């Protein structure tokens, strides 16, 4: 099963390598990983999406906890949480479909952040389902380029942990 794990880690060089090395060295799989500084610049926040059976997920959580630079590990999958990802999509629609692209972007609350004679670059944010749906709709329009941030996740407040 798929799990989203958030980590509070020391903001030091080598920390990312320790974590990615743990995954590759033990044969665990990383589906996405995102890192950013915390409010307190001494720390960073990471979100890792991984998959495995219960025993593997348990090992991943324990192994991450064992790293000296890792302060807190939360498997948010087990709790009410919000997940978001941002994608930038550069599409090259034929002239007669340009309006459709803009329409769809609006329906998905996307924004056009760059345009040229033949392309639109659309920024879209959401959970996985929404992103996949939008990418699906853009495919027939001609996707030239696509970059995604990887997921970030946060616990919802007011729910029992």
């Amino acid at each position: 099963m798929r799990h989203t794990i958030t980590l509070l880690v020391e903001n030091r060089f080598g920390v990312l390598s320790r974590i990615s090395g743990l995954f590759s060295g033990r044969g665990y799989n990383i589906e996405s990983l995102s890192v950013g500084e915390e409010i307190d610049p001494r720390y960073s926040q990471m979100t890792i999406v991984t998959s495995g059976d219960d025993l593997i997920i348990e090992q991943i959580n324990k192994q991450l906890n064992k790293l000296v630079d890792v302060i807190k590990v939360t498997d948010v999958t087990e709790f009410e949480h919000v997940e978001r990802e941002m994608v930038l999509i550069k599409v090259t629609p034929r002239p007669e479909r340009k309006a459709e692209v803009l329409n769809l972007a609006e329906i998905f609350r996307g924004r056009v952040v760059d345009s040229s004679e033949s392309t639109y670059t659309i920024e879209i944010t959401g959970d996985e389902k929404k992103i996949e749906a939008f990418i699906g709709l853009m495919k027939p329009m001609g996707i030239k380029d696509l970059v995604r941030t990887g997921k970030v996740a946060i616990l919802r407040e007011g729910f029992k942990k």
Partner: protein
Amino acid sequence: MKLTGSEILIESLKKEGVKHIFGYPGGVVLNIFDFLYDDKDIKLILTRHEQGAVHAADGYARATGKPGVVLVTSGPGATNTVTGIATASMDSVPLVVITGQVPTMLIGNDAFQEADIVGITRPCTKHNYLVKDVKDLAVVIKEAFHIAMSGRPGPVLIDLPKDVTAGKTDFVWPEKVHLEGYKPRYEGNKWMITQAAHLIEKSKKPVIVAGGGVIISGAHKELRELAELTQIPVTTTLMGIGCFPETNRLSLGMPGMHGTYYANKSIQDSDLLIALGMRFDDRVTGKTDSFAPNASIIHIDIDPTSIRKNVRVDIPIVGDVRKVLTALNKTIKTEAKTQWAQIRKAWLKQIDAWKRERPLTYTPSDEVIKPQAVVEKIYELTKGEAIITTEVGQNQMWAAQFYKYDKPRTFISSGGLGTMGFGFPAAIGVQLAFPEKLVIDIAGDGSIQMNIQELATAVLNRLPVKVVILNNGYLGMVRQWQELFYGERYSHTSLDVVPDFVKVAEAYGAAGLKATKPSEVEDVLREGLFKIKKTVFMDFVVDWKEKVYPMVPAGAPIDHMLFEEQEARQEKKRRLKVVK
């Protein structure tokens, strides 16, 4: 007063109580070595290879329980430590390895003797550091020793660029360590401990499996109390050897691939396993699906990742084995009203029957020296008072099987990584820590050649390490697998050219002795162990056909054991075929 990085390093090591460093100099550690030149309190043991330095520090640490310290240069000096670090990491040995690094300005430039040792050793250290500012140095050293020694111990590496060793700052020794992400848990969960006590009381056929964690936490007394109080037999893994007296009636010896028949039978037949400071290595469990099929499992270990990694566990207790056992013993004593001797009678009787059915054995000979006979003779002559180190392979298994260990920290062997070339330098470290003790490395002719250069270290430092070479001309353990599982195709396991070990020893200024007949074994041992007061190589030319039994083929359940007599039967069949 401002001190240089080198001075801060040495002063910090003194604060940590370090008396010996094992090391090897080089370009970027010149500042440190220059400072050591005049130092009176710390002695540097110059090995002849950096790998030897790490194994020596490792042996020192295993024998004393104190951290072993290593100091080497950058590049090749650093990379040569990797095998030693990985060895220590697998067996939870506390080491602090200090490597020199090129100046911070040059890092990443592929400078002369530059290696990214922090990157290389990340997966085989407990933690590691690159110190970029001399101001951080004291804190890093304090943290390194704390991490190496606490929780589940392990090696910590500190990479020190040359400019940091020369840079100056105020020396402030931190009294406390502050690590937000590192807080090992020592006390076991009380509720779980009570549950464990209940299970022990209910069980009919319990077995204790004691591992290296019992030795590390110093829980041998608590273990003995538990075993004797509740009359539960104890099997000790390779790393746990010595944590429970093998001369005790409740001892089952070693379990697993080359374990005793009765240890493996007991585990497979048990209804409760109490696993203490061990991690269910594949050499212990064999096929995990059929391991202890009827047993509930209580697993006590300080490392949460060891629990439920390889086998299912009914009662997991994360904590220090000694602390948990103390609480467990107390709970059992106050709560259980059981007549232990009475309820264990049938189980212990069954175990005694297994012990009689198939004891550890071999076929003695008057014509060729049996390696097992040499080990037995060492036990007899030393009365079990020696500290034994081993290399890896058949020598290691025979040393584990045919010498009886009654005290912790008297059997020192590379268990997890299985590093050939470990035993001799480790013995040097042990001898340095215990100059008065008899320290014996039980070696093979293959393994001893992997760090034979350390003869110089032993001789120079007047360390009377005794090396017993069970010389069969083969990489015996691999040969054994080829014989049993690869259709006797002996691919590259014959050593063909084995040096004259007597002459090698003498060339380095050590003593050399040789025995080729069974009648010479005792004399050579008496002379080598007791009469000669310096480093000795004793070369025993042993029966090359001898194999380690019992043996569980890799991946088989641990009660599927091969025994010597089966081999004899097959041999007979083969001969008959030839006659026909």
